[in-house]
């Protein structure tokens, strides 16, 4: 594929604009504050001691993961229901799902690290952790299906329907795991985020963490969504170039007989 763009002039803009710069810097500031406070200033918890610091990254990551999958579900529904079937919704769903899987992954890892410190075991079949793992695998499947072939609208329709099925499964998995966990009368395991008594400053920092991670999510999803726009545009350009080649092929073969 010739890398000189079809437009001839070398484009100046990449996926960044004023909007992304604003979100990017705010997110960076928020995360910086979160790390500083989380690691240095915040007091250790009475009974969880230092391990509570993990909460400042674990809870915001989990929040963004669920937010991202929510956006994917809403965007998928909008793609299906709106008669315009605009691909923007599909690309937003795809970008948000990819970022959701990333945040869900780190949520699971930090959850295990925290679990290891709090109860000495990496994985407990806690209802919430199990649902998180379920969503992680479900959306890995979603991303795999997005990469299947077909036209852009085929991809969009197939992915949107799969996202809707994903939403349908959440309550089913949630109730079955909760019903299943209720059978086990193991020791009253402290809830995963431990609900240590958060004093004002700790609560405020957790809140800053949530805001910072949400800004980070928005920044990432804007860039990723635009990258998908570029990918689709390249497909179309690719198609134009391929059409030119294909039509030339006809003239070429003509010389045969």
């Amino acid at each position: 594929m010739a890398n000189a763009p079809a437009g001839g002039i070398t484009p100046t803009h990449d996926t960044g604009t004023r909007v992304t710069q604003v979100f990017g810097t705010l997110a960076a500031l928020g995360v910086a504050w979160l790390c500083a406070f989380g690691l240095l200033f915040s007091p250790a918890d009475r009974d969880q001691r230092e391990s509570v610091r993990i909460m400042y990254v674990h809870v915001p990551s989990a929040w963004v993961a669920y937010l991202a999958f929510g956006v994917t579900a809403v965007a998928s529904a909008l793609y299906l229901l709106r008669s315009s079937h605009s691909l923007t919704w599909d690309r937003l769903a795809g970008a948000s799902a990819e970022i959701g899987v990333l945040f869900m992954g780190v949520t699971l890892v930090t959850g295990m690290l925290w679990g290891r410190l709090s109860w000495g075991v990496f994985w407990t079949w806690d209802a919430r952790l199990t649902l998180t793992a379920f969503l992680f695998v479900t959306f890995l499947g979603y991303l795999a299906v997005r990469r299947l072939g077909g036209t852009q609208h085929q991809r969009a329709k197939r992915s949107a329907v799969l996202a809707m099925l994903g939403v349908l499964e959440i309550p089913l998995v949630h109730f079955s795991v909760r019903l299943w966990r209720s059978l086990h009368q193991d020791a009253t395991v402290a809830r995963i985020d431990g609900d240590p008594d958060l004093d004002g400053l700790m609560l405020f920092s957790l809140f800053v963490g949530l805001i910072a991670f949400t800004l980070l999510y928005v920044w990432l999803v804007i860039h990723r969504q635009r990258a998908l726009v570029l990918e689709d545009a390249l497909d179309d350009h690719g198609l134009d170039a391929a059409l030119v080649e294909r039509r030339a092929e006809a003239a070429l073969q003509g010389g045969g007989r």
Partner: protein
Amino acid sequence: MTSVDLAAGTTVDDGSRPAVELSDVVAVIGGFPVLAGVDLRVERGEIVLFHGPNGAGKTSLLRLCAGLLPLERGTGTILGMDVVDHRDELRRRVGLVAHANGLYQDLTVAENVRFWASMVDADASEVDGALDRMGLRGRLADAPIARCSAGQRRRTALACLVVRRAELWLLDEPHAALDAAARDQLDEIIRAAAASGATVLVASHELERTMALATRHVEVRGGQIVELPGG
């Protein structure tokens, strides 16, 4: 988008429109434009022969007419119905027989035809009629497809077309792997179909054989139609 006509007759097409009308149609498979701007018009009752080198797009053209290949660009109507908007409706009246005959290997010839008949509520007499027309009666009808000859499978697939009352026949290399007798029989079947009002599009390499059969020859190259003068 299931159309309301499941039981009643179709309500969309008035029969006057041409069987196939494509303008600047582009279709893509895996990023490659198999059809790169096809313009084609076929009247009802014609037998049109598409020939051209391998990979020219003959099969893709037939699959597009059968509503199996999504339209990337351009517009098209089959039997008067838009390829995109009325896709389910037009599919009901189109029959495609390709290398894969769309038959169930483990079922017998008769069972296959009866199954496809049940998909369009054709009754037993139509099934017998189709089997007769294709010379698939008696012991032949009870042979499982897996043990049938290429000719018998091809004729079974055509019987399924007849029983489905397909108005547009799309045949991809119909003469492939057939002996001389089976080929003549096939030509008779195609002529009879056209005589009874069906439109037949044939994609084939066998120029001499199908030259006589077709009312028009169209050369396909590089995903486009290259009209031959006079034809």
